[in-house]
Structures are given as structure tokens and as C-alpha cells.
């Protein structure tokens, strides 16, 4: 391995010596005919400009054909489909702009290379032109802003509504835990000082809402139902990222964040759609959270509602032994689970 290092140094030195020769030679030559040299530089670099434009754009299109199939499949959630649609509109606008501006830039660079018999066009102000390229982007952006904002409002309205199946995603270094709210659809309250080895989420066993809460190490969701994720962290900031559903929300210690969405395809359907029998959904941690950040994840499955109900039955309660003892009739506190958890 030291050989490698030595080789690198030797090779580097050789290159440097070679460069020195080239440079010395070049500066000797250039003294003689600077103008001719600049003229040839102008020729070659302007050709470089047009070549870079043409080859660059072609390679770009080629790469897009190659790599786009590797990007995420079509969204598997309701709002995700809307986001994908919006993305398509945005890309269309951006690509048109991209092509126009890059072509103009490199083409002009190519076309107007120096010619000593010519003067440039002394043209330095034109209010009409400035107005055009202020107003057109403004109109286009106004359209993008309004469509984007209205989609954002749709998405966040749902999260604020507190409707849907309540599931807590509890993040810690370096895993996620899911807690299903059970029949009452209310999470029992929790507090970080109550955390113990046997109660890693610090859940309040005396809270009536706790009794039917279920704990899972896998996120299983019923297709077609609205899901309300209630997200917490107990140590550092993590991020709940479900790329196939276009869902992301940070897990922040000291507060509860939410994201509501509706899965529209089961895992089996996705396997068919992608032609990949091994396809699985995934939840990843997407905020740097420590050394094993890259390994923080939770498996995700979407199933038909009936299968979901069956699966729920097999999950364990938060406090299995006390389950029977917990009085089911006590009314839940008026404030939402979210506020009680946030204290």
C-alpha cells in the first residue's frame, strides 16, 4: 500500500515536471506571436463552447433516459400523485427555460468570438428588454407559486385535521417504533422521564387511552385509508421519510409533528407495477442523527384493509400484562393526545 503512495508521488512529480516544460515552452513561444496565439485560443475555445453545448445536451438527454427509470416509481399515495403531477409541470417549465438559456449562452459565445476587424455592438440598456425578462418570469412563477401553494395547503390541511388512523412514529438512535392508537384511535400520553428499559416510549400506563395501544416494529398500513402519523423523537432530530409515498416530516425532541396521507397501492400491487417481485416500501431516517444514521429505518407494508385488521390482532399491546386490568370506560382527556405528549 505504501507502494501505491510512492507511485502516486512519483507520478505526480512527473506530471508536474512535464507541465513545467509545457509552461516554459508556451511562455517562450507566446512572446513571439501573442496575437496569433490568442486568435487560435479564440477559435478553439469558441468551438469548444458549441461542442460543449451540443455534446453536453446530448449526453444529458442520454443520461436522463438511462437514469430516470432508476428514480422512484409513481407515488403510492393520494397526495403523492398530485405532487408527481406538479413535478411534471415544473420540470416542463424548467426544461424549456434551461434549453433556451443554455443554448443562447453557448451559442452566442461561439458566434461572437473576437475579430480584430469588428467592433462589438455598443448596446448597454434597453428598458423594453429588461421589462420582458422581468415580466415573463414573474407570470410563470406566479403560476408555479399558486399551484404549489394550493397543493401544499391541501396536504397540510389534512395533517392538521387529526382525522385518520392515528399511528405514532417514535424515533430514537437508531430505530423507529410504531404505536397504533387502537380502537379509540387515541394514543395514551407519554413522558420522557417515564422511559425505562421495559417502557422505551415512556408511555403512561394509567392513561385510559393507552390500554388498546399496540406496538410494532414494522409499519403496516391499510390501502385506501387516511393515516395520521404523529411523530416524536426522544434524543436528536430524525426525519421520517417515506419516499414512495412522498412523505417526509422531521422527528423533533420536545414536540409532536404530524403528517397525514392515504396509501393507494398495496405492496403486492407495487411489485406488479414495478415488475420487481422483491419490491418493498421503506421508511428511512433522513436527518443526520449519529454514526448509524445510514442504518436507521423501518420496513413498511401496505395491505388490503381486511389483512390489516388481521395483522393488528397479532400485534402486542404496550403493556401486555396490565391490559386486562386497565379500566376501559374512563373517558379520555379532552385535549388531544398530541398536546399531552408535547408537555
Amino acid at each position: 500500500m505504501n507502494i501505491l503512495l510512492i507511485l502516486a508521488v512519483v507520478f505526480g512529480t512527473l506530471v508536474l515536471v512535464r507541465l513545467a516544460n509545457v509552461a516554459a515552452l508556451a511562455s517562450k513561444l507566446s512572446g513571439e506571436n501573442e496575437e496569433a496565439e490568442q486568435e487560435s485560443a479564440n477559435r478553439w475555445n469558441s468551438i469548444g463552447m458549441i461542442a460543449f453545448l451540443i455534446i453536453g445536451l446530448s449526453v444529458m438527454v442520454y443520461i436522463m433516459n438511462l437514469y430516470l427509470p432508476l428514480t422512484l416509481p409513481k407515488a403510492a399515495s393520494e397526495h403523492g400523485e398530485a405532487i408527481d403531477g406538479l413535478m411534471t409541470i415544473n420540470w416542463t417549465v424548467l426544461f424549456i427555460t434551461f434549453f433556451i438559456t443554455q443554448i443562447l449562452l453557448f451559442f452566442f459565445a461561439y458566434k461572437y468570438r473576437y475579430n480584430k476587424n469588428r467592433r462589438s455592438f455598443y448596446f448597454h440598456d434597453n428598458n423594453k428588454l429588461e421589462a420582458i425578462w422581468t415580466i415573463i418570469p414573474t407570470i410563470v412563477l406566479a403560476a408555479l407559486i399558486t399551484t404549489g401553494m394550493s397543493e401544499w395547503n391541501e396536504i397540510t390541511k389534512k395533517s392538521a385535521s387529526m382525522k385518520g388512523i392515528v399511528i405514532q412514529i417514535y424515533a430514537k438512535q437508531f430505530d423507529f417504533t410504531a404505536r397504533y392508537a387502537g380502537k379509540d384511535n387515541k394514543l395514551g400520553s407519554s413522558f420522557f422521564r417515564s422511559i425505562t428499559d421495559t417502557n422505551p416510549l415512556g408511555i403512561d400506563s394509567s392513561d385510559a387511552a393507552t390500554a388498546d395501544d399496540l406496538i410494532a416494529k414494522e409499519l403496516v398500513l391499510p390501502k385506501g385509508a387516511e393515516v395520521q402519523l404523529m411523530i416524536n423523537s426522544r434524543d436528536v432530530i430524525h426525519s421520517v421519510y417515506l419516499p414512495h409515498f412522498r412523505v417526509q416530516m422531521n422527528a423533533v425532541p420536545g414536540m409532536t409533528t404530524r403528517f397525514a396521507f392515504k396509501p393507494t397501492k398495496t405492496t403486492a400491487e407495487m411489485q406488479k407495477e414495478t415488475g420487481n417481485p422483491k419490491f418493498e416500501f421503506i421508511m428511512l431516517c433522513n436527518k443526520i442523527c449519529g454514526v448509524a444514521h445510514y442504518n436507521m429505518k423501518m420496513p413498511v407494508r401496505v395491505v388490503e384493509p381486511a389483512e390489516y385488521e388481521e395483522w393488528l390482532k397479532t400485534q402486542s399491546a404496550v403493556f401486555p400484562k396490565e391490559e386486562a386490568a386497565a379500566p376501559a370506560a374512563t373517558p379520555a382527556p379532552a385535549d388531544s393526545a398530541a398536546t399531552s405528549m408535547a408537555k
Partner: protein
Amino acid sequence: MEVNPHNSMAHGAHADEHAHGHSHDHHGHDHDHDHEDNFWSKYIFSTDHKMIAKQYLNVAIFMGFLAMFMSLIFRMQLAWPDAKLPFLEDVIGKWGKDGKLDPGFYLALVTIHGTIMVFFVLTAGLSGTFSNLLIPLQLGARDMASGFLNALSFWFFALSSIIMLFSLGIETGPASGGWTVYPPLSALPQAIPGSGLGMTLWLVSMVFFIASSLLGSINYISTIINLRTKGMAMTRMPLTIWAFFITAILGVLSFPVLLAAALLLVFDRSFGTSFYLSDIFIDGAPLDHAGGSPILYQHLFWFLGHPEVYIVLLPALGLASEVISVNSRKPIFGYKAMIGSMLVIAFLSFIVWGHHMFVTGMNPFLGSVFVFTTLLVAIPSAVKVFNYITTLWRGNIQFTPQMLFGIGLVSTFITGGLTGIILGDSALDINVHDTYFVVAHFHIVMGSSAIFGMFAGVYHWFPKMYGRLMNKKLGFIHFWLTIIGLYGTFFPMHFLGLAGVPRRYYANTAYDGFANLININHVVTVFAIIGGLAQFIFLFNFYYSIKNGKKSSQNPWKSNTLEWTTPIEHLHGNWPGAIPEVHRWPYDYGKPGAKEDFICQTVPFSETPESNTPHDH
């Protein structure tokens, strides 16, 4: 005064006649030669702005190469996660045991790479070099308003660099929480080893850095406001100076907020407060700090963080404006619109920070507001791009290395600005936030555009700094390899983001769906290596030319601005005689009727009846 015989700017001589009673006359040149400069006062503790500029540049080049090495190491990890890289252990010691990069040290590398590139290279390196060099020279001042503060600014910067470098060598490793150092991760040594001593050093280093930046900025602002030569109205300043001016104002207004954020973090870490900490259970015990909010830190950080990206970009745009105009032999198109758009960008940059926080649980309405303000930034940006393109149109383009980098800057600015529009749209940002899409975006704008601006500046003003020319041929090779390397690295990266790959992952092994992306990672790393190697051409060219480059003439690029009226040999006070007076704007290139295709700012209209237009007076 050493007047170059080939000097096409004979008009410089007129300066003396026009500078009657100018306020700077009295502190002329006579006392400059009284004392012999020794090595220490000339090279090390100099208060001369030109020397300080060179000091900044050299430190920035060193730091830049170091940060580049770091990136190559972690890029190799990402492309060949299973390979053993035997040289790693030699280079980084225990963190590369048996040729395997340690996952914790991966994060440390990413963190320090980002910190160095954003702050030490693109903030201090770019502004520190070119604001220092050009503000007095292009405005007709003998030096900065305060030479002492200026030197102090450099020395704080040097100290902060040394502390940052020192943190690389400590037992628990340097800061590893990402360059944005979000708490609680950065506040709790229990959470990651890098948040121990490494993070303390990071914070101390940044405190010095901020002090340096503030001293520098205050100096730039007061120099620009007070020390312009006679006739140098604000509306006759080159766009470089406008850019430095606006940048300095941004810095003065935003860096103190970063200092506040950092100090509160210091308190949380060392003095038992809990500004950013709440409800934390770590290392088997609940933390007594409670009641704070980690989100508060993000608000403070990005209140600096977003203006910071323009602190990085605006000077690059300013340098490019000058370089593109000079080399197109044509006035910059829309001088006033360029200033206006920079002012609008600067203003907007203070009210968009929330676009980094769409998915933090921030109130969705606030998110909408930030979408609105963020997308507005695209309008002045578009104006700038079209003005650059129109400047090229029907120009008479001299392809020098700096011109190539100037054009490259416009190209990457377009590309990165467009992906910014996706990211600024909160609904779309949900799925690409914190993925490689963001990494691609900001490397195209900062890692490419701003770096291109810096290279353009170095090639263009190298003769002003060292009295010699850099080799053009090597410059061309450097440019073409660099732009190919950069686009090859960062264009494919967008697809990783669109495939849902999170950033700051040591390896993409968590999810089987990422397995087929390894090809993209190969391509990215190979191009990164190409781009990295190309920088050695620059390094060689730079240091070789200092000693052996071709001697420059006084005004090698046939420019109009004042810095080229100073003698090639540096002297304290810049002009041996009186300071030249300014009579016109800096962009009279290719003026119809004029004898030559450029007219220096020092030439009065009375001498150019053949080219005067009705607006000239």
C-alpha cells in the same frame, strides 16, 4: 513610477492634472519609502490591502485543496463501499483502519468539508481576496479605511482556520453533525463523539471566523462609502464593487445572528442552559435540560444561512460581470438592472430562510409565505442571467481562461437556480428535502458557480497580484476539465435524489431498492476525481506563474477600471502620484467612434469628442 512602454492606457497620466486639491493628495507616497520593510512586516503582518488579499487567497487555496481531498475520500467510500482502500490508513490513521473508512469519520469528513468550503473558501477566500484587492484599487483609494482592522480580520481568519484544522487531529474526531450543526445532535457528546471537544473547537473557530468576517465587512463598507476618488459616483462603480458592497452589508446583518446561534449552543453545551434542548432521554437517562426548542436553532442558523449563500454567490457574480464585459469588449448589459437585481436578491435573501425548514413541523402557513418569497428570488436571478447573455450577444469575445470561467458561471447559475425552484416549492420539497437532490442543487450553485467566479477572478487579477500572467493554455485545460468534472459529478446526483437517496449516508445499504444506483455513484465519483485532478493544473499554474509567469504589461486585458492605472510593482498607497480622477462609467468598451475599443474611466469626455453621445456629459 514605472510606466510600461506598451501601456495602451496613456490616459492614466492625465490623472495628475485632474486631481487638483484632492483630499488624498496629502498622504501621498513620500513616506512610503522611509522605512525598509522586513520580511515580517511585508509578508506576515502587513496592513497593505494587496498583501492581505494574497494572504487570504493562499490560505483559501490551501483550505480548498484540503476540503477537496476530504470529498474524494468520502466519494470513494460511496462508490466502492466494499473495497479496501489501503492508502486510507496512511492518510487518516485510525479512522481508516484496514482500508475501511470509519462511519463516524465519514460524517466528520462531510461536516468539515462543508464547513471549509462554505465558510473558509467561498466566504473568506472569495470576499477576503477580491474585496481586499479590488475595493481600494477600483475606487481609487490608497488602502482600506483601516489597514489595521483589515490585518486583524485576516489574523482572526487564520486563527480560526488553525483551530478548525487542529480539530481534525483530536482523539474524538472533529465536529460530525453536518455543516449546519443542528442541535441536539451537536449539543450532546452522548449522541455522537464529534460533539465532544471537536464541536467545541468548531464553535470557537466559528466565533473567530465571524469576528474576522465582521471586521472585514465593516472595513469594506466604510471604504466604499468614504474613500471613492473624485468623480467615482456610486453609479460609476464597477459591478464588482457593487457586489462586494452588498455582500458586506449582508454579512454585517446576518453573521451576528449566527454568532447568537453559536453562543446559545455554547451555553447549552457547557453552562447548563436549554435553549435548544427539551424532552431528551439519552444514554440511559433523561436529560435535565428541558423547555427549549431545537427548531429555534434552525431559524437562527438559516437566518444567516440563506443570506450566506448569496454572500458566497454575489461576489462571484460581480467578478463575472467585470470579466464578461471586458472580454466581450462590450459594456455589461443593463448596468442599473444588474445593481437593482443584486439589491432585490439581497433584500429577499433575508426573508426566505424558512425554505430550509418546510418539513420541520413549522406552521404550514409560514411555509406558504416562504414559498412565495423564495420563488420571487428567481425573478432578479433571471434578469441577471438574461443580462449576461445579452452582454455576449454581438460582443467581440476574447477567450481567456477568466472568460471561460465567467461563461461557466452563468451556465451553472442557470442550472442550479432552476433546481432551486423545485426546492422552493414546499409541496415538491417534501420528497427531495435532505436528499442528494439538494446536494446537487447547492453544489451546482456554490460548488460550481461561485467557484467559477473565484477562478475567473484569479486568472483575471493574477497580474495585478503578482505582476505576471498565468499560463493561458493550462488555464484552458483547467477550465474544460473542471466544467466537465463538475457537471459530470453533480448532474447525475440529481437522479440519486429523485430516487430517494438521503444525504449524509455512509452507505446505501439500508434499502435494497438503492442497490441499482451504485452505477450512478461510480459515475459521480469518477468525474469528481477527474475534476479534482484538474485542480492540480491550476495549483501548478498558480505557483509556477508567481515566479516564472510571463511578465504582465500594465493593462493586460485592456480594461477601463482604475486598478490597471497603478504600476505593476506594488507600492503602499497604490498610485505613486496623485490619485486619478474618474470621469465616466467603467464599461465604455467598443464605443462607436472611439479610437480604441476601450476608454479608461480616467479619460474625460472632453478628450473623446469623437465618441461622445448626447447623454455623455
